[in-house]
Every structure is written in C-alpha cells, then in structure tokens.
C-alpha cells in the first residue's frame, strides 16, 4: 500500500509539472484550430491527435487538467473553511443556534447532491467568459459542498467540548474565539485535512458530471467535463483510442487522490 501511495504521489507530481510546463510540451495553444485536420490520429505534431475542431488534444488535456487541479482544491478549501466557520460558530454559541445549524445541515443533506448542483448551476449565468464560467462552477461546488464536512466537524467539536482540557481552559477564563483558535482548532485539524482531501476528487467528478450535462466550464477553455463530452461521439468502429486519454487521466487522478486520502483518513 505504501508503494501504491508513492506511485500515486509521483503520478500527481508529474501531472502538475506537465501542466506547469504545458507551453513547452505542446507547440500550439489549447484553442488553436486547424480545420484541415479534424479528428486526426496521433502524429509527431499532435501526440494525442486532434478533436472534431482540429484542436490539439494533448494541449487541451493538459489545460483541462490544469483547470481541474487548480480549481478543485480551491473549491475544497472554500467548502472546508465554510464547514469550519459554520460548525465552529454553532459549537461556540451552543443552545438554539447549534440546534438550528444542525437542522440546516440536515436540510442541506436531505437534497441529493447532484440535483442541488444542477439546479444552482443552471440558475447562475451560463453565457459568460470561459474563465468566469470555470470560477462560477467551482465556486458553486465549494459553496454547496460544506454540509457533510460541517456535520462531521460539529460532532467532533461537541465531543471535544466535553473533554477535560477544554473544561480546564474554560475554568481558566479562556472562551470565545480564543478557545476555538488555541484549543479546539488544533485538535480538529486532522479531520479538517481529511475533509479537504476527500472533497478534491468529489469536486473533480462533480465538475465532470456538470460538464457532460452542459453546465460546466464553457468553450473554448477545456475542463475534464468538456473533454469527456467528446466521448458522446465515440465509436469503437473508428478506433480513435486517443479520445479515451482524458477519461484514463481522470480515473488515474481520482484514484491517486483516493489512495492518498486513505492514508489521511487513517491518520485522522
């Protein structure tokens, strides 16, 4: 298992490096169209072939990976911070605020995740610039993905509050945000890190689902969702297996995150 985790970490690092040095790896931009060679097979100029509009698939895959690997952790950070704020405020206030927060979390969790996501994303502007659409999509993921983490953190906080060292801190006059910052948060951090890492593959998959449904990042900026949408024209008779590269990469990245998370969960 340790060997698998090392391989996962190495693969993710390689991908990050490939995304950083994308301009050096691919001679053309992700949005450059060559109408003379649509759906081309792999060649020396286009290592993964081209898509239906004659765009270099390798450049698009690397750019899509960059978008997902930058924005998914950002969305995970938003949802984790929201979860800490909500659970922390509820735990500090106690009483009816805590009960109300718990009901709010229950309400949030009672709606199926994808239904909530599709509804909210469809209600936000769709005809915006590609980068804005990417930011909106991942912000929606971040803003809607806090409930599960908040429930876990609330449970952990209420357990921590009844511990002797917290009672002692309270008796010594430590209260409010000082108690949260100095005593509760340090004990909460392993769970917070685990929640952060768990959210990343979840958000990558959610963006892919939204993209396939036409609610993700808009063209020409690629994301794994829009790259996978290309598969609706996939035919086994055409045998252009390079179309499957984004999917293989997505599976590899999500598997790597799952492998690394399993270590984080054990540590938490």
């Amino acid at each position, binding site marked *: 298992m340790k060997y698998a985790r090392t391989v996962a970490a190495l693969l993710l690092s390689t991908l990050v490096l490939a995304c950083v040095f994308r301009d050096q790896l691919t001679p053309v931009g992700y949005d450059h169209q060559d109408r003379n060679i649509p759906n081309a097979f792999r060649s020396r100029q286009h290592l993964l072939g081209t898509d239906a509009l004659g765009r270099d698939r390798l450049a698009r895959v690397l750019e899509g990976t960059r978008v997902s690997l930058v924005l998914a952790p950002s969305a995970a950070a938003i949802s984790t911070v929201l979860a800490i704020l909500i659970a922390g405020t509820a735990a500090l206030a106690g009483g009816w605020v805590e009960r109300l927060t718990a009901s709010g979390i229950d309400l949030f969790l009672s*709606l199926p995740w*994808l239904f909530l996501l599709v509804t909210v994303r469809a209600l936000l*502007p769709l005809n915006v610039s590609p980068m804005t659409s990417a930011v909106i999509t991942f912000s929606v993921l971040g803003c809607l993905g806090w409930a599960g983490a908040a429930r876990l953190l609330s449970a952990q906080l209420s357990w921590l509050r009844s511990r002797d060292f917290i009672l002692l801190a309270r008796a010594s006059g430590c209260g409010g945000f000082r108690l949260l910052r100095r005593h509760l948060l340090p004990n909460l951090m392993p769970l917070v890190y685990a929640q952060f890492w768990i959210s990343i593959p979840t958000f990558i998959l959610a963006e892919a689902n939204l993209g396939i449904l036409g609610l993700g990042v808009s063209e020409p900026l690629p994301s794994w969702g829009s790259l996978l949408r290309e598969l609706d024209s996939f035919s086994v008779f055409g045998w252009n297996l390079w179309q499957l590269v984004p999917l293989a990469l997505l599976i590899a990245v999500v598997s790597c995150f799952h492998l690394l998370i399993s270590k984080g969960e054990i540590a938490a």
Partner: protein
Amino acid sequence: MANARRWLTKTLLGMLLTTLIGGFAGAMLVRFAPGYGVDERELDVRLSTKTITAIRRENAQQHNLALFYMHYLAATMHGDLGYSMALGRPVRELLSERLPETLTTVGVGLGFAWSLGLGLATAVVLSRDSSIDALASILAGILLCLPTAILALWFFLAHASTRLALGVIVFPKIFRYSRNFLLEARSESYVIAARAKGLSEIHIFLGHILPACAARLVSLGAVSVSLALSAAIPVEVICGLPGIGQLAWQAAMARDLCLLVNLTMVITAITVVVNSAPELLKKGACA
C-alpha cells in the same frame, strides 16, 4: 406508548417542515437568480400590447416570493400544483406521468446494485479468499472514479439497459460499506467462538454476522435511495428517460419556478421519508 406517539408526531412534523423549507429554498434560488423575470414571449412581435401586459401581470404575481409561496401552498392543499411555463402543461400532470418512470428506474437500479454489492460482499466474507476481495475492491474502486454521466453514456452507446446503469453507479458504495460492516462483524469474538464450536460458515453468516449488521444495512439502504435519486439526473438526461431527473434538469435550464419548487419538494420529501424510515422502523420494533 405516549412517548412513542409524541416522538412520532415530532418526527412527522420535522419531516413536513424540512420539505416545506426545501420547497421555499428552491423558490428563493429561482427568484433571485440573475435574469429571472425576463420572459421570451415579450419579444414576440406577433403579440399585441394587451397580451404582453397580461403576461407581465401574470409574471408580476410571482415576483413577491413570500406571496407566491403562500399562494402555492394554498393551491397545493386543493390539489393544484400550478402550471409549468416551460413545458406548457400542469405540473400535476407532469409529475404523475414522470414519477413512475423514475421510481421504476430507481427500483430496478437499486435491486441490481444491492444484489451485486451485497452478493459480492457476502462472497468475500464467506469465501475468505483475498483474491475475490481484491478483484471486487478494484472493480468498485474503478467505478467510484468514473463520473456518473460517463457510465450512463456508455450504457446508452452500448444499447444496454439504462436502468442497470443506475445500479452500476450505486453498486460500489453498497459493496464497500456492506463489505466493511460484514468483515467487522466477522471479527467479533462471539463469531470466532461460534466457529470454534464447529458451526458452518453459512450458519454463522445467517445466524450471527447478518443480524449484527442488519440495522446498519437498513441505514445504508436509505442512503442508497438518495444516491440513486441523485444519479437518476444524468442517467435520465443522457439516456432520454422521461423521468423526474430529466424534468428537474429541464426545469432548472428553463428556470421554471413552479416546476422547480414542486420538484424540490417531491425530492426532499422522498429523501426525508426514506432517511427517517430506519429510525421509524427501529422505534416501531422497540414499541
């Protein structure tokens, strides 16, 4: 008995309140979405000023959110769920037409997922063969890494039963959780004692392991319904199944306030009832 009745009333009221708040939240989302209130019909040059004024008056009734929701709830009491502007049909008609399709899809999908998931988990526990466990875990792991929509697309392109796609989507979670529950119960000391006394593996499984996990499996059953409902959206949209999932997608894309409020309430109600069912069953058994 009085306590149980009080608890039941409280739970039912909680469920009703959650559903109502869910509907209101859905209405609020649509109402404050950018571009709300713009009606494409107003751009139609064939319509007279009088008609456009009538359309504006009709839309103005929906602008006050609280008023809209109060009117909506009052009409719901009389069985009127409103009218879908986007699809041009009464919402009640749409729901009664599409709900059975989704329930069938979810039912067939869950049946398949549970047969496969629990079946494989049982095989892992009974066989004590690490290769079966490894193979099943790898299969579940790969499926967990695939977006729901891609699985639906593959089933559609392969002309396979699209309802089974939903089962394949839910299967890995059922397998992983039930495998963990069963393996945990298998390592309990009373199970080891039963094995030491010479009981067969089947007897141990049916008499000791399965009853120990029953409550957690029922809870997993409730969660799996919510997972299946969530997965029904991409499955129905991609495979063209005329169900609630497809309707939700159409309503969201067309910003159909009335339809979206109803759908939010229906989906919230189903999820809340299903999630509360294990607790209700447990209390019922105790009473």
